[in-house]
């Protein structure tokens, strides 16, 4: 028997297998298995409390797994934490910059923490300032920057030491739409440099921009694949019907299910049903409006989204 020993350079950036983590009684991760490949933009999509931040913390070496295994850049966690830390860049949900220091001082400080100094450090600082378009603001205190600019500096900070894996926890939290797009453009372009990113989000449109997505719910992976693959699992269209009276949602669901001989769900205060064929939705909408006009506030029809995948797998909305 020959055994292939993966060297850290070729090892997948993240490999977790049966990963568990509990906080006291509460189980935050319940057997998560997934692999992030080299140079891949990988999304962890899930509602609050789904375990994605816990997974982020384990992979970023902040907390140890309670069970299962986690290998990052070929190093075992938690025993090889220091080796992992050298190779990962981390962008936290809340800002980690020192507001009293200038942009450049923050980056220099970060470089020192990673053992960079002298010309090598100066080059890295200029390179990353350039990347995020903050060269002009290098001498300004971080406290004077806007939220979007701070995020860009956070990104520069995370990339300063040239990591092979970038970990980001809800990086667009609190940003306006333009700043969100800007950040995601940066993440997309990192792929070309062979930097893999693992990013948590609760936004469908962000997950859509990932190469692959793992949908998490209650500490488990409920779906994993490219956004296209995941959506393709659901043929047809999704019709959502909002009742006029919120307490009538279950009655409406049963009535619609009987009338059209379809399977209908009530999730998050709306009735939801899926047609088996594309194009069938429009006809259904017309008939629902005709038959249930007095009970229905609005009807919408669309192609299944990642949210529909979540609902399909968990029976709950993504709230």
């Amino acid at each position, binding site marked *: 028997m020959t055994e292939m020993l993966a060297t850290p350079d070729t090892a997948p950036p993240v490999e977790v297998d049966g990963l568990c983590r509990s906080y006291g009684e509460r189980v935050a991760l319940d057997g998560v298995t997934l692999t992030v490949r080299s140079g891949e933009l990988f999304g962890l999509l899930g509602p609050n409390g789904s375990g994605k931040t816990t997974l982020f*913390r384990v992979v*970023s*070496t*902040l*907390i140890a797994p309670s069970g299962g295994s986690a290998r990052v850049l070929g190093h075992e966690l938690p025993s090889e934490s*220091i080796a992992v*830390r*050298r190779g*990962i860049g*981390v962008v*936290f949900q*809340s*800002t*980690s*910059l*020192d*507001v*009293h*220091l200038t942009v450049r*001082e923050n980056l*220099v*400080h*970060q470089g*020192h*923490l*990673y*053992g960079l*100094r002298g010309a090598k450090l100066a080059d890295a600082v200029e390179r990353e300032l350039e990347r995020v378009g903050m060269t002009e603001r290098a001498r300004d205190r971080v406290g004077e920057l806007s939220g979007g600019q701070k995020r860009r500096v956070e990104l520069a*900070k995370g990339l300063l030491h040239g990591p092979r894996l970038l970990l980001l926890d809800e990086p667009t939290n609190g940003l306006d739409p333009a700043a969100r797009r800007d950040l995601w453009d940066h993440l997309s372009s990192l792929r070309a440099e062979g930097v893999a990113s693992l990013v948590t989000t609760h936004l469908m449109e962000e997950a859509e921009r990932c190469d692959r997505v793992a949908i998490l719910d209650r500490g488990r992976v409920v779906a994993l694949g490219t956004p296209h693959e995941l959506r393709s699992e659901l043929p047809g269209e999704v019709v959502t019907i909002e009742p006029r009276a919120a307490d009538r949602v279950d009655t409406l669901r049963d009535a619609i299910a009987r009338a059209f001989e379809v399977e209908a769900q009530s999730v998050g205060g709306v009735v939801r049903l899926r047609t088996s064929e594309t194009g069938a939705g429009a006809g259904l909408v017309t008939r629902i409006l005709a038959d249930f006009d007095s009970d229905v506030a609005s009807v919408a029809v669309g192609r299944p989204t990642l949210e529909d995948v979540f609902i399909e797998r968990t029976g709950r909305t993504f709230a």
Partner: protein
Amino acid sequence: MTWLPAYTLWKREIVRFLRQRNRVVSALVQPLMFWLLFGTGFGGSFRMGAGAAGAADSAGAQDFLEFLFPGTVILVLLFTAIFSTFSLIQDRNEGFLQSVLVAPVSRAGLVLGKAAGGTTLAWVQGLLFLCLAPLAGVPLSVSTFLVGAAVLLLVGFGLTALGLLGGWLMDSVQGFHAIMMLVLMPLWLLSGGFFPLDGAPPWLAFIMRANPLTYGVAAFRHALYPGGLPGQDVPSMAVSLGVSVAFAAVIFAGAWMIVGRRTRGDLR
């Protein structure tokens, strides 16, 4: 990887301090006010040594302003130690600490950098205050200044380490206020810096002798009065230095160990 991270964390402490002007002012003005108000206010009712036979005649006679001076310098150090506690809690609340914790920095580097930063700030402020000694009637020579500076460095280091230890254990600013009022202020009030050991009732004197800061204040008094402290019940220089070194070493080791162990409080 210890020294470069420790250096950069040290430097950050200093830069941050200098950029927060209110901190610079309050750290020096507060003790100064304290000293002048208490020193002159209590001056009339204070008699050194409680020896009824006219202490004013003896060589060691001090008025309260003079008596209070060494304790006030130690108070400056204590305030800075409080700030180092506060700065750690701030680092955590502002989110700064999380990026240090995922960097390939040994915890030793982290503790060393924070402790060195806090100690430097405490020391420099203590030295500035020490320069006021002549105003208190304490003559300064080069040698008393140097010995005094060395003692301040030692005591400042111990108190900063104590602040870090407290800060690491605490998650909130409320906890910080509690420790300040319940631990740090009594530590100073019962250090022989505010009132002398020999005037205190036995039970209080017992507590004061068990207080490690008593030895810091005593060492500093010895440093300022190389000719000795006649008529005052103060631990000897050797004992004071010994206890101060041991205190600083134990507290620093404690901070070192606890920073290595506790990580859950860093998650928010």
